[in-house]
């Protein structure tokens, strides 16, 4: 009973302080929105409107049709027509275009005979994503309006795109972003929580009261869990309206998984808070966690493509497990039961972190 009174007292105090700290309050809503806009709109791997130029040495009906088809795909944006391949290369050199299309004078014959490639694509390969786009373009079929021949060859493999038929990056980004934003804000909030009170002198007062360490820790975690869940709701609501990313699985599963993940991050933050001496160190430590989380968790690059040692590190990071869980539930409509191992990993992480934080925290000054 006394414990409950004390935990509630700490919670209430945290909420009051939070509501008066405009910067932090702004961060709670601002960070998710800004990040969502940034990643949702700017970072886009389904590339469109790449600058292009072409040279059409054939200048036949078929070649003109072909160039028009390429332009109509919207993948490239044809800026100009030039007279020679050399000019194309010059444009590539100065960076005015990313893709050059060279149609040779015997284009029609090459298309009909199919003995060698009909068109050459000159690609700025410094960006692997553009190179990938060029490879997609090379598979574009050429329509023969003049000769209604059946397609001469059939691809060996057919690609069926599950879960994301329109190939929109936002589909992958939005759920991943939930984890990144929660890692960024939650770890930071609690990482500074105890050092801030140490710096302001409040801690000397608090540790001289009968409050117990687990009560203090719990009282500091619970308010931020609520704030974290609020952020999850904000991100998915905005994701739904702006980027048309819908939750296929159950909303309850999303909240459950988020809750455990938030608690894990808050515990990690508290642990950091007991290890550092100043708020500045706490922030540095929080970013030290954030960076590998973004890079290794599968948010940026596919997990399976990473070397084994990187995967090992990634398995320790809560974000890795959360990404699997949340993408599973949101994008594939998976059931939480089928991914219990990742949920368990998050739970274990939380327990270890909070236990260490409680053990590290001392109600003494020495």
């Amino acid at each position, binding site marked *: 009973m006394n414990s409950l009174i004390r935990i509630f007292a700490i919670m209430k105090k945290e909420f009051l302080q939070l509501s008066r700290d405009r910067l932090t309050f702004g961060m709670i809503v601002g960070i998710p929105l800004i990040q969502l806009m940034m990643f949702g709109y700017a970072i886009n791997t389904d590339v469109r409107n790449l600058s292009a130029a072409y040279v059409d040495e054939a200048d036949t009906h078929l070649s003109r049709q072909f160039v028009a088809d390429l332009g109509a795909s919207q993948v490239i944006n044809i800026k100009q027509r030039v007279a020679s391949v050399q000019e194309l290369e010059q444009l590539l050199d100065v960076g005015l275009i990313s893709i050059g299309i060279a149609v040779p004078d015997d284009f029609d014959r090459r298309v009909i005979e199919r003995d060698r490639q009909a068109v050459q694509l000159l690609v700025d390969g410094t960006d692997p994503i553009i190179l990938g786009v060029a490879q997609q373009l090379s598979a574009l079929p050429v329509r023969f309006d003049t000769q209604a021949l059946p397609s001469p060859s059939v691809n060996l493999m057919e690609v069926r795109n599950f879960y994301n038929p329109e190939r929109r990056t936002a589909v992958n980004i939005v759920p991943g972003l939930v984890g990144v934003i929660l890692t960024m804000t939650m770890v930071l909030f609690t990482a500074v929580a105890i050092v801030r009170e140490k710096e302001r002198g409040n801690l000397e007062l608090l540790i001289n*009261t009968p409050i117990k360490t687990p009560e203090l820790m719990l009282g500091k975690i619970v308010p931020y869990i609520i704030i974290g869940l609020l952020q999850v709701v904000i991100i998915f609501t905005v994701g739904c309206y702006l980027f048309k990313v819908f939750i296929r699985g159950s909303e309850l599963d999303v909240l459950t998984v988020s809750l455990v993940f938030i608690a894990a991050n808050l515990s990690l933050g508290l642990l950091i808070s007991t290890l550092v001496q100043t708020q500045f160190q706490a922030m540095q430590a929080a970013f030290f966690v954030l960076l590998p989380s973004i890079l290794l968790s599968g948010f940026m690059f596919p997990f399976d493509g990473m070397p084994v040692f990187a995967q090992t590190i990634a398995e320790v990071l809560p974000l890795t497990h959360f990404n699997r869980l949340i993408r599973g539930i949101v994008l594939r409509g998976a059931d939480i039961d089928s991914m219990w191992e990742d949920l368990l990993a998050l739970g274990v992480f939380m327990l270890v972190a909070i236990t260490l934080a409680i053990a590290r925290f001392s109600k003494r000054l020495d």
Partner: protein
Amino acid sequence: MVCRCRQILNNMKAANDIVISATGLSRRFGSLVAVNNVDLQIPAGTIYGFLGPNGSGKSTTIRMLCGLLTPSAGSATVMGLDTRKQSEVLKQKIGYMTQRFSLFEDLTVAENLRFISEVYALSRKRRKTRVAQLIEEFNLSKQLKQRAGTLSGGQKQRLALAVAILHDPQILFLDEPTSAVDPKNRRDFWEILFDLAAQGTTILVSTHYMDEAARCHSLAILDQGVKVADGSPMQLGESISLNVFEVVAEDPNKARISLAQQQAISSITQLGVSLRVLIPKDVEGGLQLVTSTLAHAGVHAEVEKVFPDLEDVFVAVTESRPEGIAA
């Protein structure tokens, strides 16, 4: 109510009991010895002072007695509880006012009081009455909705004391409570302390003001972590091995210069037109020495033997130590 009654009973029983005792209490920070072998015996219901300059180990000693710092050597018991092992039990019974204002500056006065009353887990009814009572007693009703960070020095101090005694502690530790407060507030503050002591609270207060130390029932003088003297202000005055002479001269400057020639005089302090001259008791005819020296120098002055005040005591006990002179 039950709590109150038990407290009064305890006070009666403990009227002359020692409630704070320490033996050989020491604390090192690396190579620095902050507190060195301090012994204390403080009876219940007294106001006990720690007098000493900054860095003399006052705060460190208080923190050790509260159980916030572990002693490097020696031990202390407060209310019969070992400060090393039973500090959590102790925390219900003691109040501690930190040197630096340690309440939440972004919470209002009322919120701070309510928060602390909840942290001590007082009953709902008791929380309400106690907070209302303290607001009344400490004259904080106009500041209830003001953030603690915007309070004046005196208001902050009153709030901090109100918070420290919110759970009716039997022992109160005050670490330089009046350092940021004007004289009027200091006087009011001491009145509250005397009231609390009269109700049976034992108060340990540290200060570097002589006049404040003089108000204590009993005090210890700390210098570089060592307790160099203790007792009531009266006892301390009697105990020193120096006689004090007050010299009121027309030209105090000239008087000071002439007296400074005398090897037997251990200290001269000028206070406006008067000088306080300290001469060891084993020097015979101290009064004679002062008057003749002044007469010889042609300084017209009245010389009178006076009772040593705390400043004299402080000078005497700190300068008689070899380290004291070196410092």
